[in-house]
């Protein structure tokens, strides 16, 4: 632990900020957007098999099942991408908060040091005055 030495033995300590940690996540609006895109992809994909002998549309068929599977994975990846962007933004905000806190702490420290210097100067003046009195 670091300490400040000097005239009054003042010892502010350096402590470490915790690291930013997140499990990830999306907002309800982003979840809704993912559901909407999922529905669009599903409808578009299944429509390709409409009228074919392989079966299509919302009816349960092998191709419809496979199409839904692809749309499911696509939705998962869309959600993951949105989550990554969200957490990147939150991490940036956390770093900004750290910088502001550090600046505030540094300013407070500078103020304390100024007070100490003024106290030291007063002590010097008192010592000078004492010496002059003793001499006279």
């Amino acid at each position: 632990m670091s300490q400040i030495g000097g005239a009054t033995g003042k010892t502010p300590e350096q402590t470490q900020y915790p690291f930013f940690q997140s499990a990830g996540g999306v907002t309800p609006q982003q979840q809704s957007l993912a559901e909407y895109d999922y529905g669009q992809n599903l409808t578009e994909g299944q429509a390709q098999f409409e009228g074919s002998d392989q079966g299509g549309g919302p009816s349960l068929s092998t191709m419809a099942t496979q199409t839904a599977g692809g749309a499911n994975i696509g939705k998962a990846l869309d959600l993951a991408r949105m989550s990554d962007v969200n957490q990147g933004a939150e991490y940036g905000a956390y770093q900004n908060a750290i910088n502001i806190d550090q600046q505030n702490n540094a300013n407070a420290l500078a103020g304390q040091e100024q007070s100490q210097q003024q106290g030291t100067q007063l002590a010097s003046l008192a010592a000078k005055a004492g010496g002059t009195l003793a001499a006279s």
Partner: protein
Amino acid sequence: MSESGGGKSGLDTNLQQGPFEFGPSQFDLGAIMNAVSGNQTATTNRYNQLGMGGSTPELQDLAQQQNLGQAAIGQEQTADVGNPAFNPALQPAQTNLPTSAILGADTQNQNALISGIQSAGKAAGTAAAFA
């Protein structure tokens, strides 16, 4: 910033670097696994409906879903491992008081102390001269 997860000489001896996270975020992993699980269930249901459950070609379709999931996890792992938000090892270790502020305060304190000692010494000299 610490080096190789250890400390650094000087004022920041207690700085610790964050753990290195290799995997995708919990949210990403959950979303992918949820999709894979749902796909496997839907595919199994479809083949059971057709009376083909358990036969080899259909099992390959099921395995394919698992492979898709693994690929998606790998894709997200690559994205997340380079993102400081999910990998603390990429974040700079920072203290509440920057080292520069500590050193500046040290210098100010020392200068003030030296000035005070000099003044006291002068005063003592003056007193001795007249004694």
